[in-house]
């Protein structure tokens, strides 16, 4: 197992180095297939590891609890006796789950990109970055301590930056990559501060030490408070801030829609299925600690609830199909966050047997599959019509039947229609919400309804609405085989994933239990979803003026939603007008005029003085001698007068 663990991390890293250093000497095909081969091997190894872990009784204790296994944990940096940073491989239900998710999606994206990225400049570089990302993400999820996770965290941030800015000749892609990097870096500052506070009190980075005995953590914190909140709350909220940045929670969500400038498979891998759920994973990893603090939990629920609703509203009005999917991702991740939050009652005891925790992980799994499917489907559409906007698509169902069917499956899954996978996981989340507080339950049900609405709005606008207008004899065509295989595979998974008895695999205390459908919640959510789909059908299935009427009836709301509630403008205002204008400009002025001015003055004075006295350097040796002699004589005269 340890060998497998090392190989799982080493192969993507090796592929990154190989493709990154030698890629330019390879042909596109070779680099692509090498990348796929490396990722395929990793996939097999990860599946072996995960299946061994889940099904081998060796990894289960006598009472049926799944164990946390350290496959290896080596000292990497030893600063002092206490400050030691390890690199290791922690295998437990959620990391095994993430191994499966990451390697599956990553492999499919590798395969898909063979078709999608064909003939692109920098094809080999693209595969190198994909490998780097896979390595970093795997490093993150198998982290044995917060610091290793932080390293992986930053590495995924960096590879996300590289991949968003893949088309670096495009101005919008460059600024999107910078935006993503800066926003997440800013959030990571919070994460780092949280790590420092937490480790200052607990004197450990190790997850097992932290989570196996949360009461000890509480004792260590004692009664330390800061600005009315306890130090523990601060630490947990700051750590969560890092998660907010990566998982695009409000108000740090602004980078994710722009990140769609990257290649579409990258969006599917990084900005839908894996990296953006790192925040959820982080909270889940620290869950026993979050259980201790109600304030932090409440904060998570609030942020998640508001984000979920906000993103769903915005998704209803976007034109760019990738933006719709991006906001849908934000909304779904917020679902997971809320679900994690409602898993705790704040007294150190998980409510309803930690149902929310299980539901969150379940949703993370199913969401990864169907959202990757949707993104890859969107990629196929974009590949076909060379535009991101649904206005260029309309009525594509006849031209791209496979994409159509798989996209429909994805929409049904995310809308929560049984028997598709999204139904089961979302149902668990809603049930957990209702158990926690009815208001949260109603709120999230509403968001679920909105989800069904905007997804089917998108679906109808792409595949129906009106007949496709064929321009310049360019008929949209079905995607090539390497792109179709991932679509079909993911569609199949999205259909059946809901029937996995997830409670047997991932629970907060690693004790398996049977999940069961809450019929009332399930029934009502199916009802809401069906109503929402029906409304979408009415409005968007055939060309009519209902959407225009809606827009005219609520112009302000439409405007606000379409402009994403002006968050970007607010950020621009704060950064450009307030920070740049009031702070940076005076500093720049001071730097340019006072500091540089002083230096310039020195230079000018020296220069002028040199020009003034250079006449003394006449080149007449005798003059020099004369001056020297007179000087020496003066000195001698002074000496003689003083001495005698």
């Amino acid at each position, binding site marked *: 197992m340890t060998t497998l663990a090392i190989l799982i991390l080493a192969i993507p890293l090796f592929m990154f180095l190989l493709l990154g250093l030698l890629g330019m000497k390879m042909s596109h095909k070779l680099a692509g297939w090498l990348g796929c081969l490396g990722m395929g091997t990793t996939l097999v190894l990860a599946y072996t590891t995960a299946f061994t872990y889940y099904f081998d009784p060796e990894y289960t204790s006598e009472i049926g609890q799944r164990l946390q296994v350290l496959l290896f944990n080596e000292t990497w940096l030893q600063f002092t006796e206490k400050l030691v940073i390890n690199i290791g491989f922690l295998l437990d239900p959620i990391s095994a789950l993430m191994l499966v998710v990451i390697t599956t999606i990553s492999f499919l994206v590798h395969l898909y990109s063979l078709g999608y990225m064909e003939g692109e400049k920098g094809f080999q570089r693209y595969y190198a970055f994909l490998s780097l990302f896979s390595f970093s993400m795997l490093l993150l999820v198998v982290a044995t301590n917060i610091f290793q996770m932080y390293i992986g965290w930053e590495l995924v941030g960096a590879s996300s930056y590289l991949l968003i800015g893949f088309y670096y000749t495009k101005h919008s892609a460059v600024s999107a990559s910078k935006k993503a990097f800066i926003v997440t870096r800013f959030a990571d500052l919070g994460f780092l501060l949280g790590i420092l506070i937490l480790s200052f009190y607990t004197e450990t980075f190790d997850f097992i030490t932290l989570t196996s005995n949360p009461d000890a953590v509480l004792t260590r914190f004692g009664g330390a408070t800061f600005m009315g909140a306890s130090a523990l709350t601060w630490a947990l909220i700051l750590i969560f801030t890092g998660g907010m940045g990566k998982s695009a929670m409000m108000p740090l969500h602004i980078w994710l829609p722009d990140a769609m400038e990257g290649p579409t498979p990258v969006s599917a891998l990084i900005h839908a299925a894996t990296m953006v759920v790192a925040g959820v994973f982080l909270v889940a990893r620290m869950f026993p600690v979050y259980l201790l603090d109600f304030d932090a939990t409440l904060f998570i629920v609030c942020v998640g609830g508001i984000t979920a609703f906000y993103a769903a509203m915005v998704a209803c009005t976007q034109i760019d199909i990738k933006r719709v999917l991006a906001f849908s991702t934000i909304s779904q991740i917020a679902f997971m966050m809320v679900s994690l939050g409602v898993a705790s009652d704040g007294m150190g005891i998980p409510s309803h047997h930690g149902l929310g925790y299980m539901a969150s992980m379940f949703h993370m799994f199913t969401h990864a599959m169907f959202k990757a499917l949707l993104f890859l489907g969107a990629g196929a559409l974009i590949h076909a019509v060379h535009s991101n906007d649904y206005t260029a698509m309309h009525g594509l169902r006849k031209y791209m039947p496979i994409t159509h069917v798989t996209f429909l499956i994805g929409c049904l899954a995310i809308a929560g229609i049984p028997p598709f996978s999204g139904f089961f996981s979302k149902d668990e989340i809603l049930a957990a919400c209702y158990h926690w507080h009815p208001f949260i339950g109603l709120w999230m049900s509403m968001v679920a309804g909105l989800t069904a609405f905007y997804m089917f709005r998108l679906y109808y606008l792409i595949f129906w609405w009106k007949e496709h207008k064929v321009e310049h004899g360019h008929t949209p065509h079905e995607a090539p085989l390497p792109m179709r295989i991932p679509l079909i595979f993911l569609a199949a998974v999205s259909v059946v994933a809901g029937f996995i008895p997830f409670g047997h695999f991932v629970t907060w205390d690693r004790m398996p239990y049977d999940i069961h459908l809450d019929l009332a919640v399930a029934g009502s959510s199916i009802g809401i979803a069906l109503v929402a789909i029906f409304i979408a059908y009415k409005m968007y299935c055939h060309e009519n003026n209902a959407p225009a009427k809606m827009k005219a009836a609520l112009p302000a709301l439409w405007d606000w939603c379409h402009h994403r509630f002006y968050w970007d403008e607010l950020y621009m205002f704060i950064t450009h007008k307030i920070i740049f204008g009031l702070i940076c400009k005076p500093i720049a002025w001071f730097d340019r005029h006072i500091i540089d001015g002083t230096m310039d003055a020195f230079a000018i004075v020296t220069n002028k003085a040199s020009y003034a006295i250079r006449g003394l350097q006449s080149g007449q040796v*005798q003059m020099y001698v*004369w001056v020297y*002699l*007179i000087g020496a*004589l003066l000195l*001698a*005269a002074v000496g*003689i007068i003083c001495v*005698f």
Partner: protein
Amino acid sequence: MDSVGSIILYVVIALVMIACSVLAVTTRKILRAATYLLFTLFAAAALYFMLGYEFLGAVQIAVYAGGIVVLFVFAILLTSKPGDKAEKLTSKSHTLGMVAALAMLCVAGYGLVKQVISATAMPQMAEQTMAEVGETLMGTGHAQYLLPFEAVSVLLLACIIGGVVIARKR
């Protein structure tokens, strides 16, 4: 009280020294300047003999008169074209030179008058034998000069090579 002979010798040496050095810097023909320098050097050598430093006097004549002045003469002959008149002094450089020389004279003269005017007559000195001089030059003990001697020989070697390298035709 010195003998009349030595006083006469003194007067002759001092006069030659002063007159020839003044002429050496004022004559307009460069070859003559070299000749006057030669006489000055001879006067200095005579002074060394008078002081009892026969070896030093011999070196002075051999090296300065025999070596350096000959070098000067060769250089002058190489660098001056036939019929060359020496340059006329400009009044400006003449003034500058006079100022410097007079200032030097004043400062040093003032020092001399203040400090050395009362110095005694020449004390007696045991006659230096050549063996003594040789031992001092070649010895390694206190107040003996083997190391400077060797250093000077290295310097001379360097100067020979340097002279050849600088002056050779390229």
